[in-house]
């Protein structure tokens, strides 16, 4: 139905294009008047006016129509309908399904109710078809009026090009506004759902509590019915893994960037850069798979073996601990994440090191410094703010990274600085809270939005600071 209307509208719009164009062409031929715009602009103007008002009406109908029908019929449900919620709402929903020709839900209705349901469905159906016919007429009236308006204006003196270009400008602006709308959508949805969460769990408890166990009992008498929403263990786990990742990525990425920028010949660069780009292009789920099934078991075997050797010796307790180390540990997730970040750090640092002017290096060489001395004493200090910005961006990536930690870090929320322990992170908890089927309104699912908001705010601050530094620094030497 909708598709048919859209096709019809497209055909009408195309026809208006041809008519408006022809009208101008023939007017020019008969009067010899010089037109302001070329004929296809008149055509395009006609096509726009034929389509846009009708489309707006159509969109309004599609959004508001079902709601109007629901509101009107909900206001006078038949007397036989169940009085108690949620059965009353279910009755309405069932009537709407029946009206659509679908089967009602499995709720058992009495014969009287069933009769009322059918009558109610019929009413809804009647309203629906009324709305559909009315809407169809409204759409065609809107289209016809728009088309007529444009057709009437299709005269040689009309500045059709300017009019069309104004439309183009509106469309272009609307497209770039989508970016702002996205941010707005993120902020609003996170804040809205988080507010609902913070109504049950105070913000301060969330940010400073040290007990995380989001399982809320369904019945009040269940054991452990309190549920804990103290996010500190998650922050600690996130920072532990981020720390390990940065300890891996920062030195390796920076040294790789220095080598690429200062030492590598162009032939070497031609090989190394694409390889690093491949490393950067591998999806994180692949890193996660690798961490979980290759690095994790390998590290576990390694530490267990060391533990076996230590048991019975002076480090007996340490040996026993190492023997119990599991696949899922902070070290594995952090290390693999660090490897993932190497190309990110190196390509950003590479740009920044290249932006340091050659004259600084030449000055240093002229004083007799070797290349490495120049790099350490001149290039790196000059590049330091930019490199720091790149590291901050990497930190923000590490905090927000999800798949590697989900697959390799584990679920135990605990406060520890031991890299061999299994820890959990903010992103892991968001994933575990929101995957699987659960109702949308419990504190458990809403807490994921609280975590998401925290994550968004932290990464946003890091990004803004880092981008400022990087951009400011790039301009400095331009």
């Amino acid at each position, binding site marked *: 139905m909708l598709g048919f209307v859209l096709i019809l509208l497209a055909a009408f719009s195309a026809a208006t294009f041809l008519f408006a164009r022809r009208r101008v062409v023939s007017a020019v031929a008969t009067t010899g008047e010089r037109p302001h715009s070329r004929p296809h602009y008149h055509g395009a103007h006609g096509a726009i006016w034929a389509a846009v008002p009708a489309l707006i009406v159509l969109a309004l109908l599609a959004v508001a129509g079902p709601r109007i029908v629901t509101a009107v019929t909900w206001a006078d449900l038949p007397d036989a309908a169940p009085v108690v919620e949620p059965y009353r709402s279910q009755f309405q929903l069932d009537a709407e399904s029946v009206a659509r020709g679908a089967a009602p839900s499995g709720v058992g209705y009495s014969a009287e109710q069933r009769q009322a349901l059918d009558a109610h469905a019929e009413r809804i159906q009647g309203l629906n078809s009324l709305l559909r016919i009315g809407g169809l007429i409204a759409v065609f009236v809107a289209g016809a009026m728009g088309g007529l308006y444009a057709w009437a204006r299709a005269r040689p003196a009309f500045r059709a090009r300017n009019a069309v270009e104004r439309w183009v400008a509106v469309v272009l602006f609307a497209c770039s506004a989508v970016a702002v709308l996205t941010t707005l959508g993120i902020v609003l949805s996170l804040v809205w759902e988080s507010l609902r969460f913070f109504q049950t769990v105070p913000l301060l408890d969330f940010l400073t509590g040290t007990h995380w166990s989001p399982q809320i009992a369904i019945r009040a008498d269940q054991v452990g019915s309190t549920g804990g929403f103290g996010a500190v263990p998650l922050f600690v786990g996130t920072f532990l893994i981020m720390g390990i990742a940065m300890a891996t990525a920062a030195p390796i990425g920076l040294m790789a960037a220095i080598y690429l920028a200062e030492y590598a010949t162009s032939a070497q660069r031609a090989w190394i850069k694409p390889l690093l780009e491949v490393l950067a292009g591998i999806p994180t789920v692949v*890193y996660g798979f690798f961490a979980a099934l290759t690095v994790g078991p390998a590290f576990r075997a390694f530490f267990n073996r060391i533990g076996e050797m230590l048991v019975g010796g002076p480090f007996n307790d340490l040996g026993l601990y190492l023997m119990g180390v599991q696949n899922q540990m902070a070290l594995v997730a952090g290390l693999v994440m660090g490897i993932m970040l190497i190309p990110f750090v190196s390509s950003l640092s590479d740009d920044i090191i290249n932006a340091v002017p050659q004259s600084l290096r030449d000055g240093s060489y002229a004083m007799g410094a070797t290349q490495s001395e120049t790099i350490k004493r001149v290039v790196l200090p000059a590049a330091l703010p930019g490199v720091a910005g790149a590291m901050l961006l990497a930190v923000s990536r590490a905090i927000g990274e999800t798949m590697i930690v*989900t697959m390799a870090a584990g679920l135990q929320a605990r406060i520890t600085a031991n890299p061999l322990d299994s820890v959990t992170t903010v992103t892991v908890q968001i994933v575990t809270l929101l995957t699987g089927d659960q109702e949308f309104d419990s504190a458990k699912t809403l807490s994921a939005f609280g975590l998401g908001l925290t994550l968004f705010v932290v990464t946003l601050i890091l990004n803004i600071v880092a981008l400022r530094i990087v951009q400011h620094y790039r301009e400095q030497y331009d």
Partner: protein
Amino acid sequence: MTDRPDHRAAVARRLKQRHAAERRFRLYGLLAIGIAVAFLALLLGRIIEQGHSAFVTHSITLAVPVDASRVDPAYPQGANYDQMAAEALMARLGVDASDPINGRAARDLLSPDMGFQILAQVREDPALIGQTLTIDAPVGDDADLYFKGEISPDTPQDQRSLTDQQIAWLDRLQADGVVESHFNTGLFTRSDSTQPETAGLLGAIVGSALMLMVTALLSIPIGVLAAVYLEEFAPKNRLTEIIEVNINNLAAVPSIVYGLLGLAVFIGWMGLPRSSPLVGGTVLSLMAMPTVIIATRAALKAVPPSIRDAALALGASRTQTVFSHVLPLAMPGIMTGSIISMAHALGETAPLLMIGMVSFVPGVPEGILAASSALPTQIFIWENAAEAAFHERTAAAILVLLVFMIVMNAVAIVLRRRLERRW
């Protein structure tokens, strides 16, 4: 010059140290690159090692008599065809079929797919009841792993999933030539399944393709037009500045946050169907848009101002200049950037977990509103599966995903090489 010899020696010694430090520093740089490249080789090598075996599978050809006394022609799906197949297998091996332990062991070697195939044939043609059907079906997942050498007869019996007796049977079947190894077409013609031997990627590939289509249709036009506005039309004022800062920050927002947005807005408020390619594609397009915008702006910046000046001097309006001259010239760069960002979107997993694309979907999605999985989430699902045979399939799915991404990137590189213009 009155250099004292010991002073000179000190300088020479220091110089030697400094040169040694220089060599060391250089080595660190090489080492860093070496680590990164070695890791890349290790990662790819390990995944190929784990995954290559999934591209081969073993199937068994078995003549199964369909016992007319056990099949009700009016209700053919009620019969236990797996048991009939297992009995046929035991008859072939000359094993006592009345022993339930034997029956179970034999059934475990066959895939349930065999039973499904018999049922399908019987349903099609009820006259087949009572006759003997020759069925070609995959072997069970553990038997398949054994034929590939991944279950070794040397490991003690209690540490492997096949008994000594089952292994002896499999050896005999292979010696008889009823077991055949061939390319695993099922990996590409079947969808997800609870049985590893019949699980394939078709549903995930179609889901990913549908999703990518939605992403491309939304993010490329909107992103390109937004970039055109910001680069060519936007006045320098507070509003456009806010938009620019916004876009740079959006590119760095963690992907999981986009998933939360999709869950709250598209599924929660708008009521679009969960797990559908439409929602997934929309979320991915929001993520891909900043990169498309950034790539398009770079391509537009690369078009020299003289082109714009020439068009404007000939009386073209700004819109005409941009759409007839600048944009066509920037097209190669825009296309390359768009394809690369689409390849990136293809590998994105975290936001898809949020919008429910991790549910078990056994068929091929019928449209953009139907429940579906995607390649990266399929990898995530299979990685979590308990059966060992799923692990090789996970690696194989990764290889398929990587091949798609490599192809897309290669297309982008070829386009860039072919169409790139130096001014």
